[in-house]
Each structure stands twice: as C-alpha cells, then as structure tokens.
C-alpha cells in the first residue's frame, strides 16, 4: 500500500499493520521522499534569499528614482516597481514552498534506525505474519506529548512541562511464536517563565532539556516452549548485558513474558548507532535467557 502523503505531511506519523515487505517498501518510500524534500527545501530556501535580495535592491533603486520627476525616468521607475512586486510575490512563493517541503523533510535518523532494526528482526520474523509499525517524526515538545506540568523547585512563578514522545512502536511475531513489542520514548522537559532583565524589562524565557531515551522491549513467549523460564526467573537480571552508555531501568519476568526497559543518556538520544546497539543487546540478552529456558523445557513423554 502506498504511503499516505497527506497524513505524513499533516501528522508527521507513519502507521501501518501489514506484511513486512509492504512496511519495508513504505519506509524506503519515506526515505526517498525525505531526501527529495531536503533537496527541494534547500533549493527554495536559496531562491527565497535571492528573491529577497533582488527585491531589496530593486526597492532601493525604485525609491531613488521616485524622487526624480522626468517622463522617461517615471516609466523606468514604474517598471522597477512592477519588478519589485514580482520579486516580492516570488519571494513569498519560495518561502511557502520551502515550508511545505520542510514538513516532508522528516528526521533522518529515525527512519534509518527503523529500517536497520527491521532488517535485524527480519532474520527471525515470520514474513507471513502481520507487522505493526508506528513511526512518528514529531519533535518531542508538542502539547500532545505533554504528560505533566509542575512548579519550578526554586524559580518563583516558573513552570516545568514534562514531555514523553513515543516515536517508535513496532510489534510482530517471531518464528518461535514469541510476540514482541518494542517502543522508544524520547523524554524531555521545558522550564519557562518571566524573567526581569538588568534594564528592568520583563522577558519571557524558556529552556528545553533532554532526559534521554527510554527503550522498552516486551517479549510474550509460548509457555510450552519456554516453560523453564520460571526456574531462571530470579537470575535473569544477571544475563542482561547492555552497553555501558545505557542503564537498566526495569526488568519484569513472568511465566509468559519478559519486560526490559533501558535508558539511554541524553547526549546519545539521537545517535542511530548507539540506539541500535542498545536494542540489539536487549534482544540478545533476553534470548540468552530464552534459549537456555528452551533447553530446560524438554517435555516429558
């Protein structure tokens, strides 16, 4: 199914539940679209600068000519005015086009990472099963991502907004019938308020601070195949082997599922490679446990 361009432009979200091939093709289309939009955005951006500069020069000349009262120069001044109007219209058009393509020029690392993850997961996925992907290209600090607002601890009258932007959610089923849900949530907070400057003027100030990334992986596995997980339940934590730049936030193990949450440092929150490494290590950590559980889960005859 072709991607819905209007929806992508309006909401900056791609969402579909389809066969893996279809989702992969859509992602490739988004990559191509974003690259084209980047080129167009740069092109119209440059045009906007040229038209603006041209309009400024023509405007100055036109203003100079308007002071001279002569028949022929009046005609020239009229032509310059006409040119000025044309350049202003062209400038506005270039600006509008630039903004239009900017909306399609989505955040590169997100779709590249998603593509890389799908490639990794596809090795064990059942290609005939439906695969769900929700990929958001929205920036973190939007109202819909705001989860809480608190008073600033020591700046009077100031507030802090807390944002949680879940920009990736993928679900699927592996060939061993294990279902997985992988989510990536960007955390950030914005403090804002009025500040009195040295001149006595009040100025509105705001500052955004990233809180890093929360990566959550949930595996729901068949009890019959991995029943012995209950034997290993208390020792699963020791099998978790994640990169040093990330740290364990939560681990919950039951007979039927395992849930692992890892936090990535704020300075690495947009690093495609570091996020990928963390996710691969998370999958391998949990499967290090599951593979052993399978060996212990031979059925009695």
């Amino acid at each position: 199914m072709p991607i819905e361009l209007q929806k992508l432009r309006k909401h900056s979200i791609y969402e579909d539940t389809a066969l893996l091939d279809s989702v992969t093709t859509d992602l490739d289309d988004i990559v191509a679209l974003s690259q084209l939009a980047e080129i167009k955005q740069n092109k119209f951006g440059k045009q906007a600068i040229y038209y603006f500069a041209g309009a400024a020069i023509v405007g100055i000349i036109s203003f100079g000519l308007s002071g001279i009262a002569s028949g022929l120069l009046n005609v020239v001044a009229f032509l310059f005015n006409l040119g000025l109007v044309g350049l202003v219209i062209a400038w506005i058009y270039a600006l509008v086009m630039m903004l239009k393509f900017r909306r399609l020029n989505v955040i590169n690392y997100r779709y590249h990472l998603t593509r890389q993850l799908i490639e990794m997961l596809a090795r064990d996925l059942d290609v005939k099963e439906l695969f769900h992907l929700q990929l958001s290209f929205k920036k973190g600090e939007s109202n819909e991502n705001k989860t809480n607002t608190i008073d600033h601890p020591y700046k009077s009258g100031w507030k802090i907004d807390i944002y949680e932007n879940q920009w990736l959610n993928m679900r699927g089923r592996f060939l061993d019938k294990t279902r997985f849900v992988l989510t990536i949530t960007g955390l950030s907070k914005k403090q804002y308020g009025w500040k009195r400057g040295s001149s006595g003027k009040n100025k509105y100030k705001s500052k955004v601070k990233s809180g890093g990334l929360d990566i959550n992986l949930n595996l729901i596995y068949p009890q019959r195949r991995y029943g012995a997980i209950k034997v290993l339940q208390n020792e699963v934590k020791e099998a978790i082997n994640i990169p040093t730049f990330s740290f364990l936030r939560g681990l919950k193990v039951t007979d039927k599922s395992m849930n692992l949450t890892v936090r990535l440092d704020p300075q690495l929150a947009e690093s495609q490679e570091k996020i990928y490494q963390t996710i691969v290590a998370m999958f391998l950590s949990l499967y290090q446990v599951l593979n052993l559980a399978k060996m212990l889960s031979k059925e009695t005859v």
Partner: protein
Amino acid sequence: MQIQLSWIDPNTEERREPLFTTPVAIGRKFEEMPAEINGELVSRLVIPDDLVADYHVLITSKNQQLIVIAQNQNMGMKINGLQKNNGSLNDGDRLQIGSCEIVVNLAATTVCDRMVGFLFKRRCDRTDHTGCPYCDQSYEEDYAFYADYGNYRSGGWGNTYYDQRDCYFYDHYTGNVNFTEADAVSFERESDADFEYDMGAS
C-alpha cells in the same frame, strides 16, 4: 525432480535401482531416444526386451507432478495394472513396459541442515540454496554487542543450569519443570547409610 526406478533386467535377471533426474526416456534403442527436450537433458534408460519399443515412454515432471507419456501408442503401457497411454505417477506406482515391471519411487529431496537464525537457531530446511537469504548471512557484527552470546560455559551466566540441562523436564499438563533425573543420580551416589547419617540416625 529425482526418481528411483527399480526393475529386474529381463536378460540377466539382475535387480536394477538407478537414480534418474527427469525427464527420463525409456526404450530399447539408446539412439532412438531424444538427448534433449525443451533444453533439458534427457536421462535415457535402455531395456533390451523385444516387447519394448525403440522409444517407448517419457517420464517428465510438471509442477512437482510426475507424468508418463507413451511414445508408441500401439504398444502402450500399464500403470498399476491398468492399460494407459499416459497418466500421472505417484511414489511406489508400478509401470509396466513390455514384460518389464518398473517401480517408481520419488527420491527424497535433500534439505539444508545448516543452523540459521539470529536470536534462536533453527534448521534452514530449504531445498533450494540459490540466493538463500539465511544461509549466506553473517551476524558477527551484531553478535559483538553481546559477547559470548549462546555460550553457557563455565563462569558465564546460566552455566549450572546448562550443565544439568538433561536433568530438567517440562510437564505441559501441570506446567511444572521437574528435575527427576538429577534426583535419581543423587540417589545412586548416596548410600542408605549416608542418607540415614545425614538425617541424624544413630
């Protein structure tokens, strides 16, 4: 498709069981049978019997189905005792040409027994390795993110369980994991006297 034909040679009375790749032509004279059909090499089987035509039948495969076509309508053939000029063949069917009865068996297809998969290993089981997306993949770079992935050797996580893996059994009725063999082994090692001593008996 590979097939195994079994028959007793009418002259020597020897049992023959060669393996052929389809298409297979059967007749009395080697040179009368085609060497190639539609670009495919033909396996030619010669049966020196007066009741067999120079080029008697052709066994070919289409959509994984084995088909036999008589090339000499006058002499015909029998499939499982029924006179026919053409028909399909299944594993174990008997094909009679002249006085010779041939048993047709489909040869077992060889499957790839390599272990593939990233998170969990499984047999490839593919019959066609051409452009195999699994067999040719190398996961070395990704495995580097979890050193010793898949190993449960001494000093590593899960080693104790791994060493005793044969002792664990899962009972799918109760959902319990039993350690029955280990109990038996411990009983074997421990004499009754030791057991009583441990229990504080005099």
